[in-house]
């Protein structure tokens, strides 16, 4: 067996990386932090929801929808699951739109809000019991 080119990782570690990047002054670092904050919440949620029996992942693009819809189920996070949607919307804006982004622009949130929201989502999904 050859050594994997990309060994498996715990996606929650993206959140630590995001925090580190967010403390830097370069815009590339801050915008990458926004991207990693979303992926920390998304991938950790996906893997935990899968481990606990709430979701069967496809390890592809459709997982974005599946995770958000699953989180919004009343037996999962309920309406709070909408925060995952907001986090993704913010990530899309900050990642794809390289122009100046201002408060009041659609989807524009602070990096602090994104880090905090990602942590809250991860904590809540962590606390979920296995699906009965």
């Amino acid at each position, binding site marked *: 067996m050859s050594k994997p080119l990309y060994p498996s990782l715990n996606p929650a570690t993206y959140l630590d990386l995001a925090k580190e990047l967010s403390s830097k002054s370069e815009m590339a670092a801050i915008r990458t932090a926004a991207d990693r904050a979303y992926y920390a919440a998304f991938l950790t949620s996906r893997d935990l929801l899968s481990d606990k029996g709430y979701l069967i992942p496809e390890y592809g693009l459709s997982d*974005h*929808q599946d995770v958000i*819809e699953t989180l919004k189920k*009343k037996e999962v996070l309920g309406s709070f699951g909408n925060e995952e949607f907001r986090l993704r*919307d913010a990530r899309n804006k900050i990642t794809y739109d390289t122009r100046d982004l201002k*408060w*009041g622009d659609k989807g524009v949130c602070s990096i602090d809000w994104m880090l905090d929201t990602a942590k809250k989502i991860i904590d809540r999904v962590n606390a979920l019991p296995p699906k009965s």
Partner: protein
Amino acid sequence: MAVKMAESTSIKSYKLRKFSHREQGYTDIDWHSFISTQPKSDFTLVSAYYGKRKISIFETKKFSGHVACGQAAAYFQKLLLDKESSSWQPVGTISIETIPTIEIVKAPYKSTLVAPVIDIIPEHRELIEALLGDQGENVSEKVIELIGDSVLKDSWPLVRVEVRPVKDSEVKDWQYILLVLIFDSDFDTANKYLHNFYKKLDILTEQLDIEEQDILQRLFFFDVQTTVPIT
């Protein structure tokens, strides 16, 4: 008619009035006339929202904080009388004692509602309707009612609600409705309002049947925008 937020800040209770009209053949309801034919000056139309088959009206008596049952019916009655010579004709009875149902023929709706406090602006109405279907429209109306409830009871500084059909840019065939709540506040405050709204949505979810729960969970997403920048 301009309705100031100040007129609704003293509201202690309110009653939502619902009106139904026949869907077929409707193309336009003149909301400007609707509002301007307000029959009594001491009542304020706080907001109104129409769905595919239902019109929800929020109104309050000025200064007292109470809502008069039947006032909304009077709005319509006046409008119907005013328009009697043209295409507006009541074909049912206006009931005030029971759930008021008003049926109007040849009175279609238009897509943008002029509402003084809760300004609800649907973008691409036809796409929204196609995505929601009849059952989704029912859920939509309940969500809008909940927003109205929050504006009145929690004194939300809500400027307007934009309702947008969204086709996701990454995930194939994923379409949904995005309701953007635009607040006259800073982001943190708007965020708190949204989190409180989640609790109300969870209570609403318990009152929906399984299919409606599924629609709410899959099709409705919420975000906030603010008018006050962070300094």
